[in-house]
């Protein structure tokens, strides 16, 4: 189905990434957001607070990030599409409810505009150092989806995708912006509502007597209901059986927790989102994401000018990690160069997928700025030497 035109600001705009992200939430059908102010993410909900009273919905500023990240889940079970927005320190606080959303299979979106850490770190300056936290930050085993836009246009487009994937897989989806992308202003084209695909919630067609809230369908994802429809269902963060009842034993734990990861496998393989260039003849591949991918673009140009057969692999869906693609490339290239605004996070995934078949070189940066393109170029040159 297509987007509800009420929320779609069709036209050509000059927007920063945070504002474009907000327009993406509205186009995707989000009518509820709960947030807590934190730099450099607040502009997303500031715009939502300004837009939503004329669209018809709720923004509530909660008392903290713990509250914001669970209020959205209450709204989802009430029937809303909902999201919250934060940055580093707030993202740490939201880990509790990232786990709750994963465990209870509550479709929702967390936007994290990354800044330098640890702790309060660099409130106004960029980093990409929350990538592992996005994947593993809550306790226990589970799966999530994380998307990494590298432009305001993608902040719009991928936010719509994030909501759609959340509904399809019943999983929390992270929008992993960084401060640069969040505050970068560019042209953003918002299409007409009928040209924006929106995934509806997978509401069951079964009657209450025949419905089990956590009975997985063929794609390993269960259908959903909302409160107030007579299903009298139960949702718990405890390990639960198909009925949603607590069932704390080895068998249920194994079945449930494995499914939380397995249901996302299509995204680790064929449906992974990426942007590639010049991979056909590549001897070295630069794997990057977010703002770093734009710096890497310059380094790739310079490398080609020097006659180095350098190719681009931009992670758009960073989680689940597209290991099949990287493994396939590892069989035919000499090296991967992985620049990121952290001291080495996604590079470990690249190395794991490459499994020793190609050299993997991190290009680290502690955050607060971006790499000079020459630093990445030097790594490319060294990689093919």
């Amino acid at each position, binding site marked *: *189905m297509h987007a*509800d035109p*009420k929320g779609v600001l069709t036209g050509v705009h000059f927007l920063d990434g945070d504002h474009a992200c907000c327009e993406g939430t509205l186009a995707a*059908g989000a*009518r*509820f957001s*709960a947030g807590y102010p934190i730099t450099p993410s607040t502009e997303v909900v500031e715009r939502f607070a300004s837009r939503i*009273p*004329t*669209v*018809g*919905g*709720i923004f*509530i500023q*909660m*008392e*903290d990030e*713990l*509250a*914001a990240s*669970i*209020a*959205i*889940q*209450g*709204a*989802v*079970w*009430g*029937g*809303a*599409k*909902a999201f919250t927005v934060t940055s580093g320190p707030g993202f740490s606080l939201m880990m*509790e*409810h990232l786990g*709750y959303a994963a465990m209870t299979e509550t479709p929702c979106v967390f936007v994290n505009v990354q800044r330098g850490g640890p702790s309060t770190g660099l409130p106004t300056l960029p980093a990409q150092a929350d990538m592992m936290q996005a994947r593993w930050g809550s306790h226990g085993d589970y799966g999530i989806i994380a998307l990494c836009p590298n432009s305001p246009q993608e902040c719009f487009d991928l936010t719509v995708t994030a909501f759609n994937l959340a*509904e399809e897989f019943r999983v929390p989806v992270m929008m992993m912006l960084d401060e640069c992308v969040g505050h970068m202003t560019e042209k953003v084209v918002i299409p007409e509502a009928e040209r924006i695909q*929106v*995934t*509806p*919630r997978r509401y069951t067609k079964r009657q209450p007597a025949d419905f089990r809230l956590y009975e997985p369908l063929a794609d390993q994802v269960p259908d959903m209901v*909302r*409160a*107030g*429809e*007579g*299903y*009298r*269902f*139960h*949702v*718990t*963060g*405890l390990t639960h059986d198909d009925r949603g*009842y*607590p069932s704390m034993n080895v068998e249920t734990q194994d079945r449930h927790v494995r499914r939380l990861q397995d249901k996302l496998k299509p995204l680790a393989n064929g449906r992974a989102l990426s942007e590639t260039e010049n991979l056909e003849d590549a001897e070295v591949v630069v794997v990057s994401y977010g703002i770093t991918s734009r710096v890497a673009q310059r380094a790739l140009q310079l490398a080609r000018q020097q006659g180095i057969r350098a190719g681009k692999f931009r992670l758009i869906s960073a989680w689940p990690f597209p290991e099949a693609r990287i493994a396939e490339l590892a069989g035919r290239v000499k090296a991967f160069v992985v620049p990121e605004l952290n001291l080495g996070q996604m590079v470990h995934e690249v190395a794991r997928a490459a499994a020793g078949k190609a050299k993997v070189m991190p290009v680290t940066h502690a955050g607060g700025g971006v790499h000079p393109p020459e630093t990445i170029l030097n790594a490319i040159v060294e990689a093919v030497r």
Partner: protein
Amino acid sequence: MNETTLEVPYEIPVDAHNPVEPFLRMDRMPHIWCPGCGIGTTVNCFTRALLDSKADLDKVAIVSGIGCTGRVAGYASLDSFHTTHGRAIPFATGLKLANPELQVVVYSGDGDLFAIGGNHFIHAARRNMDLKVICVNNLTYAMTGGQTAPTTPSHVISATSPYGVFEPAFNLVALAEAAGASYVARWTTYHVKQLARSMEEVLKKKGFCFIEVLSPCPTLYQRRNKMGDGLDTMKFYKQASKVRHGAPTSECALTKSGEIVVGKFVDRDRPGYFELLNAQMTETLGERYAEPEVVCGNC
């Protein structure tokens, strides 16, 4: 389980059933609560309040946090949510805002609502969010083994205060009133009729409503303090309680073995969240304001 019924010296009508059963997931019985624990008693009162208030049960949602009382949601045959520790109120806030036709009841314990969840409690009360908060106060963290809670009275022995509690405790009813609750009452599990009536009142009242229910935890609180079993605690409640409707909540602090002031302390009308939202937005935006339609109609 074998549901034997005693041989009785008279006839029981065949259609007779326990009035709580339609409100409970009987396939989950027996529940996990200890012998002499009062949580089940509060559930009886709640089910009778639901019955008496003639609420449409399909439109009542119950939200719990973590702990012994947190398990109430799992036993109630309603749309029910067992959330994370301390976060029942913000979850309920989202649920209510998304779907205002739901009657949202928060049912949780003192540690959950007032230690880890204390901030959420005061803010929901400040907003006069239309939530009915029922706090079963057993004066301790029971699920984890009887540690000191912010409600544990001075001089009490607990698992983490082996030489006695010395920190002052919260007076929950005073806290609720100060934070802005529209309705504040306290009962004990001895006061079943009054508690059921209070619960029925809050189901019919708009705004943030709070009922504190003192309840025995014979396994961890009373035992450690040589205060007897559940029945002894019920007798203590009967003897130590004094009904004082409208009493200033500041005078209602609890002590280890002193008087327990019970009754309805606050019943006032403050504008609710939606009322204030709509008034402000209409004033500022006029006809441009679109009232919230949060539930995704065709998705």
